[in-house]
């Protein structure tokens, strides 16, 4: 295992936002390796650039300079269309507010990413059912998001994230909007994804309890990344 190349390799990453005539440096010279099958927590004060870094790794924002390789592909050099296709195949997204489509059932929400895959209807159904079984919501697949609790919605979102069997999962404060019990359930589910299915998860969180589940904690402050041994918590 040790000789496998890291699934994510970030080199000298810079990102700034322009606000009027002033430039806000959010990430400066970030370098980071994430191994395959890793569960990494990204912590840091509000506004430190956690979401920005996560978005860059997931290919939904573009850096000023530096490279990001995911599974050997330098995503900073991809065109917008190629990047969209790459995301569809390689990244699973879990958001703080679940971001399910309210007019679609749990089943349809999970099926959504598969519509781009060219799979047959039957194959899609099988994939969706497996994903919903993983998150233990197979019995709620005809329910709409409005009919589900926050924790259940987040589980549907996780099913949607894993249904395409992506190489990495990114989660931005996945428990940020949940009560303690639900949060615990979600974290256990994510742990299982790492341990049982071998997924790589990069999770932004404010919650030390959440970070504790991770193998590695990285601390982002003022655009600079520090290692943060778990023992410190």
């Amino acid at each position, binding site marked *: 295992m040790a000789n496998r190349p890291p699934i994510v390799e970030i080199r000298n990453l810079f990102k700034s936002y322009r606000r009027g005539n002033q430039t806000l440096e959010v990430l400066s010279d970030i370098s980071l390796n994430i191994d395959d099958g890793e569960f990494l927590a990204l912590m840091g004060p509000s506004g430190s650039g956690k979401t920005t870094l996560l978005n860059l790794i997931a290919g*939904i924002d573009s850096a000023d300079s530096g490279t990001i390789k995911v599974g050997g592909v330098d995503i900073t050099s991809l065109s917008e269309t190629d990047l*969209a*296709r790459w995301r569809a*195949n390689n990244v699973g997204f879990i*958001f703080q507010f679940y971001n399910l*489509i309210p*007019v679609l059932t749990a089943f349809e929400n999970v099926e959504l990413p598969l519509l781009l895959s060219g799979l047959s209807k039957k194959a899609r159904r099988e994939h969706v059912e497996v994903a919903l079984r993983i998150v233990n919501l197979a019995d709620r697949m005809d329910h709409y998001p409005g009919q589900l609790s926050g924790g259940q919605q987040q589980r549907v979102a996780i099913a949607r994230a894993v249904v395409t069997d992506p190489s990495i999962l990114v989660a931005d404060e996945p428990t940020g909007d949940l009560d303690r019990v639900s949060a615990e359930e979600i974290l256990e589910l994510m742990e299982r994804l790492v341990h049982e299915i071998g997924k790589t998860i990069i999770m932004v969180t404010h919650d030390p309890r959440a970070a504790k589940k991770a193998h590695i904690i990285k601390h982002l402050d003022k655009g600079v990344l520090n290692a943060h041994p778990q023992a410190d918590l």
Partner: protein
Amino acid sequence: MHILKLIYKNAFRHKLRTFLTILGVTVAILSFGLLRTVVSAWYAGVEASSASRLVARNSVSLVFPLPLSYKEKIRQIEGVKGVSYGTWFGGIYIDEKNFFANYAVEPKTYLAIYPEIIIPPEQWATFIRDRKGAAAGRKLAERFGWKIGDIITLKGTIYPGNWDFVLQAIYKGRDETVDETAFFFHWDYLNEALKKAGRLWTDQVGWYMIEVKDPNLAADVSVRVDKVFKNSLAETLTETEKAFQLSFISMTEAIVIAIQLVSFLIIFIIMAVVANTMAMTARERIGEYAVFKTLGFGAFHISGLIFGESLFITMAGASLGIVLTFPAAEIFARELSQYFPIFNVERETIYMDIVTSLVVAFIAALLPAWRAVNIRIAEGLRRIG
């Protein structure tokens, strides 16, 4: 699940808003269709006119007659196939509000030149024999409940007194462009009555209808006719039937233009309404579009969602509007038959309905789709929560 299903589900997220927008489109398409039909009804006489018919009238004005003796002279002009004549009677049936066109003609030649007027043979036979006989259009007879054999009394305006006619024939149009609300009778009856009363302007006709052998030579024939009567007491003005009909309409052309303008204004307004609905919709869902983009959906799918929804709403309203146009036009036709003898929804109007609603759907979705496609994902996602 299919994208079409999502479009359908999206359309009914704001039921009231969608319902009101569909209703707006329905009303707009209905009004548009009816106004277009009014415009085409206005031009119905022109549309129905034949290229092989000329109308000769007194060059001074239509109110001045032409001598009956011109008939033979016209018939001998090169290129003329047949001649008939008529005189505007202008009689009132019971009350002025019952207006309909009524005139005196020479039936045999008239029917020969107007083959689109169809009278059953046995009615025709009695009509021809009865000096006081008259023929009425099917719609006119229906309007007043007339039956064959009824005595119809018209109060003369140009020719004073009460005039009794016996309805001997009810004619039908060959197709729906033919006016079925006219009333005509024997010119001889009018002329003899005038002679008996010792009135002026006997043996005079209001206009001549001339059938030409070759429609391509209609212009030449009309020049020839006018030349024959040049420098006579009553000079003629001969023009195609179409031009003759148009000369009536040109007086009211401004109204027609106003109606046309209003009909397009309605489309413009409904475009603003649908565009507003689509803009509101897309703004509310910008975060969702960001999610779609995150999952890898591209411009094709995202604009497809928005154009599809716009198309769905507009077409739902338009189909309803088109379906309602027909019964509405029928009510119009019944209520306004004295003003618009022909009031048919034309096929072109329906095509225009469809094309305009497609254009409305497209334009309304243009800006929202452009915005949604070009939203930067990271920013779109930040708007959620």
